[in-house]
């Protein structure tokens, strides 16, 4: 029995001008990544990573995302990430937060990271209603993509 090894890369998207929300969904993100891999590593790189590549999670509130790729093609993605300056039509850069072998570990890390984000953001909110709203939006997880 051969196990398929995946790598999960947790990234943060840092826009050029600080904004609260980004209009980025997982589709635009994966398109942008694949385009850039083709730009820097050519057709060979694209062919290597295309199988098994998927954006598993993308939260535009906290600007974090999880990218899944095969263990073999991981280098091709992680080396392209720092060179990207344009995601969709937004000027932004990537910041690698964590690279894990299982999505659970990645999840744990992201939750920890989001809790830190909440601590920071909560102080700026005025009403309790807004606070609850924010909490809901930040901590929402739907991984079944």
């Amino acid at each position, binding site marked *: 029995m051969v196990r398929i090894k995946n790598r999960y890369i947790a990234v943060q998207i840092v826009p050029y001008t600080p904004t609260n929300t980004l209009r980025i969904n997982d589709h635009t993100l994966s398109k942008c990544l694949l385009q850039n891999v083709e730009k820097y590593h050519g057709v060979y790189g694209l062919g290597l990573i295309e199988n098994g590549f998927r954006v598993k999670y993308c939260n535009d509130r906290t600007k974090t995302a999880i990218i899944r790729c095969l263990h073999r093609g991981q*280098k*091709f993605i992680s080396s392209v990430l*720092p*060179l990207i300056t344009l995601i969709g039509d937004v*000027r932004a*850069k990537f*910041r690698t937060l964590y690279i894990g072998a299982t999505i659970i570990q990645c999840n744990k890390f992201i939750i920890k990271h989001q809790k830190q984000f909440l601590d920071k953001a909560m102080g700026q909110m005025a009403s309790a209603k807004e606070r609850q709203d924010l909490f809901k939006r930040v901590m929402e997880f739907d991984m079944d993509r």
Partner: protein
Amino acid sequence: MLEDHFCASLAALVARGQLKTENKSEMEQTNPFYDFSIIYNKDDKVMRALLNELVELGYKTIAIEQSFDHSKKEPGKRGSEMFPEPHKIEHLRKEFQGKLRILQRLTILYVDVNVSHAMSVSLNLRKFNLIAGQPKTDAALTHCCTTFNGDLVTFDPVAGSRLLVNRKAYQIAVRRGMFFEIKYAPAIADSNNRKDMIKIAQNYCTKGKSKNIIFSSGAVHEFQLRGPYDVANLAFIFGLSEDQGKNAVDRNCRQLFLKAESRRLGKTIMFVRGNGPIVFSDSSEAEDDHEMEDLQTELNETSENNQPNKRLKVH
């Protein structure tokens, strides 16, 4: 004689509880990660934004870069000071105390070997933590690798210099403990520069297995900065292995820093620094500084005072 005198004054100071001795491995504490090329900007606002971003990304030790074109100076002024004073960044240092360690670095652009004479007589050079050489011709590059009295060899990323280091010079430079710099910010901004940087980096790989390489940013805007792990990942493109990539932002930089310190101070075994007496009242920082100054003058005085005493004892 001199050693005796040093030990005696040291012992006296330690006995008075004013000194903390550190051994060399702890001397001049620096923490990973390192970014040895942040280009200086006159505007404090830009500088602050850059430094804040660096803190956010997890850098702990950085160097602010200042360039100096040696070839443009007229040769008439000989023997006098050629190199500029370092910029005044004390207020930034104070602001980021505890978060960032800010060093200063001078990059010397040069064409001919006359620069080494100017460097040997210069006093201003001692005020910089790091000295980098940026050769413009092939002869200068060979000189830079073999006899240049600096710590770092760098390349002009924008003009796309067509210089490639040859194997022998590279090996000698590695043996001398020189480091080679690869800047990533220009590579992010423009595809032509990217090609040049990849060419230079891959050249190191073919000529000598990419030894003694450090990555630094060379950023002028905070958007061009990347996190240390992202930079380490760039190693794949630049032909370095994973380990070498990680070391290029971490261990190699520490080595470079220690080498630069030893060039500045001469042979050093022990590093002694006054820690100041303990103050119980809630004194502000300004007062602390005065105390440090007082202590330093006191130090000087005691060492001067001790000399005659010691002589008396010996004779």
